[in-house]
């Protein structure tokens, strides 16, 4: 078992686990900013009930918002699914089941990455659905 002591915390060897260790920390720094801004613009400056199709259409008229959301999608999905991979490593004892479960997780990650990316790239607002609009449940 490895401990984080502040002196030699990284997995030794320079292989995939070392890359993964750095990857989690680098994506974490990016995600802190991306997620907090995301929460602020969808729950504070705008109520979540107003994050309608019309609002998204206005926002996605600027391609930088699509890039922003694509970065959020990509970093969060990779950070989260890599975290789940480590959890599976911790609790799934047999190698064969690890490979099965982690392969399935990789497929789910790839499928959702594609769904999210396609949604962001192909979005074209329907005419007549622009301007402020709040949903009242």
């Amino acid at each position, binding site marked *: *078992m*490895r*401990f*984080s*002591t*502040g*002196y030699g*915390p*990284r997995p030794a060897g320079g292989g995939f686990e070392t890359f993964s260790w750095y990857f989690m*920390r680098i994506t*974490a*720094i990016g*995600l*802190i900013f991306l*997620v*907090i801004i995301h*929460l602020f613009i969808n*729950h*504070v*400056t*705008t*109520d*979540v*009930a*107003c*994050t*309608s*199709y*019309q*609002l*998204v259409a*206005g*926002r996605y008229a600027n391609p930088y918002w699509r890039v922003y959301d694509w970065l959020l*999608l990509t970093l*969060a*999905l990779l950070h*989260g*699914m890599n*975290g*789940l991979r480590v*959890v599976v490593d*911790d609790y799934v004892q047999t190698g064969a089941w690890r490979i099965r479960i982690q392969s399935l997780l990789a497929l*789910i990650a790839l499928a*959702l990455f594609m*769904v*999210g990316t*396609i*949604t962001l790239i*192909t*979005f074209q607002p*329907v005419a007549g*659905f622009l*301007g*402020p*609009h*709040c*949903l*009242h*449940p």
Partner: protein
Amino acid sequence: MYKGQSGMLAWLFHRITGLGVLLFLLIHIVDISLLGFGPNIYNQGIALFGTPIVRIISLALIGAVFYHAFNGIRIMLIDFVPQAVRYQRSMFWAAMTLTIVCFIPIAFFVIGPIFGLNTGNTASGM
């Protein structure tokens, strides 16, 4: 892994909040993909987020995000700052305090509308 040594509780909360946020992320990618099915279907889906029960779940999730972020900073400080591990316990309480400090104001915005509070920003389009 951080089992035992640098705060079992901090580690356990980090794992649980991480899994919770990941579960929401997977759902959120699917609900946003409703954009491709046109305004009516998308708005029907998003209207769920304005219901009281989903607002309360969202608030719990936002609390989980705050803890995961602040404890993540604690982990990185322990990893990259020499001697920081000595302060891991106080940094855990600092992360908890920051989580609560951020949680209270955002609770007002997220669940306020259930009680008719903070309806001002529901009128904004952007």
